[in-house]
């Protein structure tokens, strides 16, 4: 039993940390957030050069063949830096679906481009009515000569505005919320019939809604088996849920560190406010919330890696905790910063908004708790 990281993993973590320290100040982050693309092509090239974009991919495609531990380490640091570049959308979602279910031809075409930083990808799975239910898919794909015709609308597509290619979930058979009958298709954003509406979210990221009208996709662009796309996207989303939890933990620890620093310097009634026991105990609560989140994150990573326990239940539990702990941590961070915590100038509120968006990504705490309950206690439901 050990919780140590390998030398290679420590070097990876430190390289991301060093990039943020040297090149990704909060001012730089805000400059990028306000730019047209809400990401920096220059930084993305750096990610490629430093090998971060190759982590989840198999060595046969030029990847690093990394594990969930590697992904966790990178995402935690990206969280600390409040990094906007679409590591989640391009590398973990778009790339993850290709790595886990793409045909050899699709993998050979796209994975090397992702690794080189030359392809921006997205995964379009949310619809107006779907809330957090991955299987709730109305977008339709009907077989036509040589391929499929897609019709429907996808919303809040991460990196949708910048992506060159997108993987779309669509119904090839079955009813609206059935798990069976969903298939995944890779298409170019420039395909005739794709209309894109880009917009910004409160955490600075640029997303898009996609309207597809009679978009024709070649049969070779189907990712995974016909009608069996749900299991593929569920597996990739589970990995990605762990990844955003790691990002959230990085944010939470940053919020705690910044709050602690503030209470050490801010004086009221002639003393630093960190000397007040009422505030000390609240900071201990947020510290413990982070430690508990870190423990569950490690537990989920172990479950995803060695399969000693059901990874699904563990990831559900983790996302519940990220919800609860995250709200506690950002709430206290704003409160303890007083009036300053309310200002847009300070980074605290921006960290809070990213945590809030992570909470809604792949399902909030209540959603995951219901799933956890179903997995653990469904035998009592007869």
């Amino acid at each position, binding site marked *: 039993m050990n919780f140590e990281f390998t030398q290679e993993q420590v070097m990876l973590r430190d390289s991301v940390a060093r990039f943020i320290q040297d090149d990704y100040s909060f001012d730089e982050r805000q400059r990028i957030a306000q730019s047209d693309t809400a990401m920096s092509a220059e930084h993305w090239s750096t990610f490629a050069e430093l090998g971060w974009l190759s982590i989840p991919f198999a060595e046969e495609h030029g990847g690093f063949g990394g594990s969930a531990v590697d992904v966790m380490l990178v995402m935690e640091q990206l969280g600390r830096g409040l990094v906007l570049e679409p590591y989640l959308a391009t590398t973990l979602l778009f790339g993850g679906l290709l790595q886990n279910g793409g045909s050899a031809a699709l993998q050979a075409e796209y994975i090397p481009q992702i690794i080189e930083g030359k392809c921006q990808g997205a995964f379009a799975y949310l619809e107006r009515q779907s809330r957090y239910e991955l299987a709730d898919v109305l977008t339709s794909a009907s077989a036509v000569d040589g391929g499929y015709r897609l019709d429907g609308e996808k919303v809040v597509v991460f990196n949708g505005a910048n992506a060159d290619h997108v993987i779309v979930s669509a119904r090839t058979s079955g009813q609206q919320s059935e798990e069976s009958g969903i298939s995944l298709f890779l298409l170019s954003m420039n395909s005739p019939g794709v209309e894109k509406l880009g917009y910004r979210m409160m955490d600075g990221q640029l997303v898009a809604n996609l309207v597809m009208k009679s978009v024709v996709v070649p049969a070779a662009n189907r990712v995974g088996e016909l009608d069996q796309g749900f299991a593929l996207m569920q597996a990739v989303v589970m990995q990605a849920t762990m990844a955003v939890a790691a990002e959230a933990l990085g944010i939470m620890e940053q919020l705690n560190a910044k709050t602690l620093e503030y209470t050490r310097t801010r004086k009221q009634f002639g003393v630093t406010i960190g000397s007040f026991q009422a505030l000390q105990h609240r900071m*201990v609560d947020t510290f413990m919330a982070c430690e508990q989140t870190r*423990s569950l994150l490690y537990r989920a990573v172990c479950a995803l890696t060695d399969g000693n326990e059901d990874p699904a239940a563990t990831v559900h539990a983790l996302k519940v905790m990220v919800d609860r702990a995250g709200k506690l941590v950002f709430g206290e961070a704003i409160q303890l910063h007083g009036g300053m915590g309310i200002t847009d100038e300070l980074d605290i509120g921006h960290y809070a908004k990213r945590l809030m968006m992570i909470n809604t990504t792949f399902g909030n705490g209540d959603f995951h708790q219901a799933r956890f309950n179903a997995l653990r206690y469904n035998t009592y439901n007869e």
Partner: protein
Amino acid sequence: MDISFTPEDLAFRDEVRAFFAESYDAELQSRLASHEPQVFKQAVVEWQKRLHTKGWIAPDWPVEYGGTGWSATWQFIYETERGLAGVRNVVPFGLKMVGHVIYTFGTQAQKDRFLPAILASDEWWCQGYSEPGSGSDLASLKTRAVRDGDDYVVTGAKIWTTYAHLADWIFCLVRTSTEGKKQEGISFLLIDMKSPGVKVNPIASIDNYHSLNEVEFNDVRVPVANRIGEQDKGWTYAKALLAHERTAIAEVADSKRGLSHIRQLAAAEVNGGKSLMADPIFQSRVSDIEIELMALEFTELRVLAAVASGGTPGAESSLLKIKGTELQQAVQALAMEVAAYYQGVLPNALTAEQLGHSFGSKARQSFMYGRAATIYGGSNEVQKNIIAKAVLGL
């Protein structure tokens, strides 16, 4: 990062499981549940002797003093299996507390005199820390020990002393000096409960039973040879013990067992025509606790792994104490919800047949006595002060 068990680990787990299944038998368990103090004590001694014979009585002691020398992983496996099997923890005062102080800070003569009887459960210990006027502010303690030849003469009182009425020895913090900082004039004494001048006064607690006491010392003579370490340095030894104690009182596996018991009970309770366990609100009450326990189990592993690689349990043990006891109480509170109005029925008010319900009284007893967990071992508020200072640097 790797927490997977090796084949040797799994074989060990099976051995532990098999031993508990065979040795912690139903007959013994019924005597352990007795409210008759001597029957209870005899049963505990018998169980601990079985562990001693097996060589497992002191999983966290070094081999040279009679411990198992197990790795952190094996200690974790053992503790987990113990909790899941519902096997009671050993009485902590000798094995989890003063034993560590004696083998760490004691003289050879003290080790030879006391350790074998602790391991064999031939002598019972209790803990003399708190006083009527010194609770969370432990260092303000006033029980005096005045040197007189080869003895100290001890005068004062200790309180909240669990099992003092069953104990042969008490380890005490006493004041040997009033000079300087209050922490600096404290000494650590081992006192024979049969000494003239020791008086035990029972304290009835809100669980309707007797486990707590006040212990008076009226000019009790204690040989200087029974002092641990140096005079006036007792606070150092006491602090080392407290960190150890806190790590031990998280009892994650026991809470897991408690929660799984609640699931069984709730599954059998019919609520509006449905099993209570099928009620989504109740399910979330269970998972609120289960999720925190899943995390705490790994927090404990992380602390164990850190200790195994040469660290000492420091402020992390405070975190384990706070979260562990909060979750124990959450489990106890949920059991009360399952018991519904039966939680209020006093023991012996009805026969089992008249009552027709088995766990309400037990749930209340655990719940009421369980209030102590966030108070003893240094109250949870004191633990937060420790974390604020030692970890957050405030």
